[in-house]
């Protein structure tokens, strides 16, 4: 399937761009919700590269995507619950004000 092979490069490139966007968001934004969305973005960037590379290395890459999605769903539930709890406690989700774990 020659046309599929030609899609591999762009797919990986898009994946890299998405991932970088996600990292940049995590590093630069302070809002916990946005941060959370950026993490999802990184996960899905990795999913994209898994799917793309599955054409070369067999179905196990696609299988891995399902696992990632399952874990991401669970993580979203737990993460949002934590953010909600923090908001109830501090009336804010600005991460700069959340530094209880400092040494």
């Amino acid at each position, binding site marked *: 399937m020659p046309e599929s092979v030609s899609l591999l490069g762009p797919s990986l490139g898009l994946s890299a761009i998405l991932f970088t966007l996600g990292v940049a968001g995590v590093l630069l934004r302070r809002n916990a919700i946005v941060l959370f969305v950026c993490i999802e973005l990184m996960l899905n960037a990795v999913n994209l590269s898994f799917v793309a590379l599955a054409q070369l290395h067999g179905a196990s890459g696609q299988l891995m995507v399902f696992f990632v999605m399952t874990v991401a769903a669970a993580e979203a539930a737990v993460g949002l619950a934590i953010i909600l709890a923090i908001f109830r406690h501090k009336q804010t989700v600005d991460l*700069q004000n959340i*530094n209880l774990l400092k040494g």
Partner: protein
Amino acid sequence: MTFTPLVWLAVALPLAGFLVNGALALGRPRAKGAVSVVGTGVLLGAFAVSLGVFVELLRTPPHAPLVLSLWSWIPAGRLEVDFAFQVDQLSAVMLLVVTGVGSLIHLFSVGYMREDPGYARYFAYLNLFIVFMLVLVLGASFPVMFIGWEGVGLCSYLLIGFWFTEKANADAGKKAFIMNRIGDFGFLVAMFFLYRAFGTLDFAEVMVRAPSTLEVGGAAVTAITLFLFLGCTGKSAQIPLYTWLPDAMAGPTPVSALIHAATMVTAGVYLVARTNVLFAMAPVSSTIVAGIGALTALFAATIGLKQYDIKKVLAYSTVSQLGYMFLGVGTAVYVSGMFHLVTHAFFKALLFLGSGSVIHAMHHAYHATHAHEDAQDMRNMGGLKRYMPVTFWLMLIATLAIAGIPPFSGFFSKDEILAAAFARGADTPVYYLFYAMGAAAAFLTAFYMARLMALTFLGENRTGERERAHLHEAPGIMTGPLVVLGVLSAIGGVLNLPAFAGGSHLLDHWLEPVTAAASRFVRVEMPHGPAELFLVGGAVAIGAIGLLLGFRATLGRRTLPAREAPADSGLGLVLNRKYYVDELYDAVIVRPTVWLSRVILWRGVDQGVVDGAAVNGTAKLSQGLGWLGSRLQTGQVGVYVVLFLVGALWVLRAVIR
């Protein structure tokens, strides 16, 4: 030999007694009846066993020692030490003395310690002492003997500090223990040397192989014997390690009689007699042994002249008599040294128990009137003969024996030692000096013993008007053993009666198999004919004149009770303060050691280096590193993410390359 293999019973019985009495001391300290029966019963049993062994040896005298191996104790490569007992003529003599005199003193203790709350504990310690003393005597090798050697030191410590609630007593116990440790170091070093030379530590093998392995008068045998003798000076209270023995009088008086007069302190003499071949091969060491012995005999006797505590006089007398024994074994008349050991055990145990009986009466008298006087100070006694006639006459026998008046036992043993020292003077002139010192000490011995008797029993009573009514003779359980010891002190000389007194040197012949090897190297030709008569006459004259002068000097002067007596001055003060040797040791050794321990070792090394640098330093270092690490924990998620990212990239880089 059917009975001899049972000799282990002599050790096992007192051990059982120790366990039972120890359990009673912990569980039922008031069960005094049971303690008395067990405590003295096991000793009488041990004495019966010893007697059986002795009789069997008498019937079939063995030519080589019988070694009875109980179990393999130290099987370590080339070193093989069995826990073995050795029965021969020498250990049989010591067995009889230890268990015999020990039994009598146990019986005496039943009366003497009757009212003490630590009665059960006392008998437990006393039984344990007998166990270790018998191990010391019976041990077939140096290490087994060393168990006993250390064990008797432990029991001595426990019994000196028996009334440990008073600090002085506890201190005296510690002093004895530490002084003994210095000597034990010598014993240990001697064992190392012996192992290097022989590859074995069994007495029998060492004694047989010594003449072929070691060079006569060589450095090896001289070092071995000198280190052994260092051990003896500690255990047997010779110069320079003698100062613990007078302080050891802090213990109960029967303990002083048993441990610090009759048995334990003679262990050094026994050790020299046991290793006689080695000492015979080392003339330099033998001369040092004899010289230290003679010096100690004279030195301690002069101190005894001016002591007021009745037990202190006897303590210095013991140090002095031990000096005689070492003069004997140093002169290579090992049998005479052992002979004096045996007779000394009789008359000195009698003297101590007699003094115990006196102290018992004095203590009761003062206790009855609630007076706070010193019950041991002879200046508070006087005229006790009227109140305690049995004790007086028995102690008089012992006094005549120790002063060397014939036909009492001490005369024969002391005379033999002095005569031998005189005879050795013919080839080694320095022995003439030792003889002169011994003779002078004999005179002083007679003098201070006469003083003791006169101050205690004669003259007018100085106890006090009200107390006098409470003075009384000791009960039968105490005078009984005294009578037995009195008989032994009187006739003990028959053990080795010399030819001029119609005897045949029984002990000489009995111990011949033990000393035969040594006599190949040194042979002392005892004087005969006019020289012998001159020496004997001189010895008797010295003793008699000493006694006479002692009685006259003491009774001719009015003695005041301790409370009113003026302080000593001049030479008397120096003697009373024991030449200030304790103060000298304190200033030269004890205080610098304490200073070193306190300032350098404690404050410097322990608190500074160990506690400060090592222990607290490690903690401080961890704390500092932890503080540095905690600076990274800002609590800001962004910082963590950056660090995580940097780390992840770094790992990625390493993986890709």
